[in-house]
């Protein structure tokens, strides 16, 4: 019902294009992992390798302690939930969900019972004889989930499972997916390009870029202390402040910050918009003109141009009750704990 997954030094080429380069990853049994990254980053290729639809050029895949690298999809303890769901349009929901058991030669009665249970689990218990085309997008997504879980896989692979749903439904389904995963205890590997979805759902996020793993860890860790500039930017909006190291300090127009690194090298100092506030801190924008102000409900988003660095626009999120308007002058500061720094490769 659940298993560990271990990916060792996986590389894959499509002709001349290297889709995966030296990817290694260990996933615990029962863990909910999301593979996050922009399109073309290799996340879907990695999922296809796990599912057995692509044989990797190099490296191996161990599931539940058994080498699965060259085992066909049918014989793996994995099932895949496809982006377009791939529900069989000519079969009822019950037959769709019972398909895997039918292939395994189970009796009709057992299939129907199990299909019923699974449809119940995803909240479609009373639509057993309906056809896929009668369902909404969200309902189809649930049937696909039920079908993939009906064969009691150790590992469930989800390829952008919420991608076809509108934003509101997507947020609702995130909670439901997480909930179902807790109930069944199966290891879930979920591919997405939506960082909010990843944060909402995952025990652990694996950020991928250009065929490599950039970063992996809990959502909070990756958001607050990303391992790379790419990961920092991908997880959410980030202010970039270029600086140069001198005497153990990064010299920025907004104050000097303690830093390690070779003398004279260039760095990027990063601050999230919500880390900037009106309370005093060691990094301060100094008097800055508000170029525009927008109300977002949970916060007020402002763009400000500091007098200390004309032409550089910073973004900040202020508490929703802040009284500010365009053209005001304001000084915002950030705490050192909220500041991260990356060397600039030259």
């Amino acid at each position, binding site marked *: 019902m659940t298993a560990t997954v271990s990916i060792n030094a996986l590389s894959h080429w499509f002709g001349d294009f290297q889709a995966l380069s030296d990817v290694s990853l260990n996933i615990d049994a029962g863990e909910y992992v999301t593979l996050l990254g922009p399109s073309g980053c290799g996340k879907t290729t990695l999922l296809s390798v796990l599912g057995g639809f692509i044989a990797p050029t190099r490296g191996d895949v161990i599931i539940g302690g058994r080498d699965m690298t060259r085992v066909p*999809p049918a014989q793996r303890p994995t099932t895949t939930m496809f982006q377009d769901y*791939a529900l*069989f*349009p000519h079969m009822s929901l019950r037959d769709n969900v019972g*398909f*895997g058991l039918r*292939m*395994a030669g189970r009796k009709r009665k057992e299939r129907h019972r199990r299909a019923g249970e699974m449809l119940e689990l995803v909240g479609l218990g009373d639509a057993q004889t309906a056809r896929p085309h009668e369902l909404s997008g969200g309902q189809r997504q649930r049937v696909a989930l039920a079908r*993939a879980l009906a*064969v009691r896989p150790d590992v469930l692979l989800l390829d952008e499972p919420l991608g076809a749903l509108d934003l509101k439904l997507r947020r609702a389904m995130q909670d439901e997916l997480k909930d179902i995963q807790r109930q069944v205890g199966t290891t879930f590997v979920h591919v997405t390009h939506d960082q909010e979805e990843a944060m909402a759902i995952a025990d652990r996020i694996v950020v991928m870029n250009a065929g490599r793993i950039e970063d992996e860890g809990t959502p909070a860790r990756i958001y607050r202390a990303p391992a790379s500039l790419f990961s920092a930017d991908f997880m959410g909006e980030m202010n970039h402040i270029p600086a140069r190291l001198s005497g153990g300090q990064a010299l920025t127009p907004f104050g000097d910050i303690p830093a390690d690194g070779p003398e004279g090298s260039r760095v990027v100092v990063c601050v999230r918009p919500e880390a900037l506030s009106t309370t005093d801190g060691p990094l301060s924008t100094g008097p800055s003109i508000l170029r525009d102000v927008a109300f977002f409900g949970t916060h007020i988003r402002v763009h400000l141009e500091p007098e200390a660095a004309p032409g550089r626009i910073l973004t900040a999120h202020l508490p929703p009750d802040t009284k500010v308007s365009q053209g005001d002058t304001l000084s915002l500061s950030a705490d050192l704990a909220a500041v991260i720094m990356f060397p600039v490769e030259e």
Partner: protein
Amino acid sequence: MSRSAEQRRGWGFVAPALLWTLAFFVLPFAVMGAMSLATLEGRTLVWGLSLANYAELAEKAYLWRAIMVSLEITVTVTVVSVVLAYPLAWIIAFRVPARWQRLALLLAILPFWTSYVVRSYAWLLVLAREGVVNQTLMTLGLISEPVTLANTRFATVTGFVHFFVMLLTLTIYANLIQLSPNYRRAAMDLGASAFQTFRHVILPLTLPGIVTGAFLTFVLCIGDYVTPQILGGNTELTVPQVIMVQLGRRADFPLASALAIVLMAIVTVVYLLSARWLKLDRL
């Protein structure tokens, strides 16, 4: 623009094609229907509402026989063509690498575009007493005397199957590649063997395409005069051959019209039987 002016303009665009179809398709068809109810007395045509021509179909054995021959040949051709074309379409869609598929398909249906006359003649070269097949078999020492292949029903069916295998390969291929590859992946992921995937998923999903292709095959096959005339010879006559005999030797337009109406009726019945799966708009 007002609604009625807008409509008038629309009719203006549609009118030429519509009038053409009415004048040269619907009207001839109606006249042919009326003709089938007329009779021939000596050489003069007598219009009327007589069912004599249709009664003749039941009375004269050679007419009834022609209908049966046509049906037998058409059903055989349709079944054989589907059975041969499906694997071919499958191989091109799923075995041939993507970059060669277009070429493989183009090559597989290129001779489709030759006329019935030339294609049937070409088969005659292959099947004739002195033709390619007999000469090859004799050279190989497999037979000592030429086998009669031409001027048989076998030759007619072969010529037809050749044509319709190409047509069906095209329609079935088009059907197969528009299926999401994830259907096959999902079925195999859930433990289905290659055969089970075909039997439970791909075949039901392509059934409308098969039925559509088979219907086209049926319509084109039962109405063709050239292939049975060139390849089948006069050993047994199909309905189109009998129609042409009526037109030529006897100038019996009423009987020819009645036979044409019967052909139409057969096609209509087959259409109604297969309408549930037919997707003519998807061609």
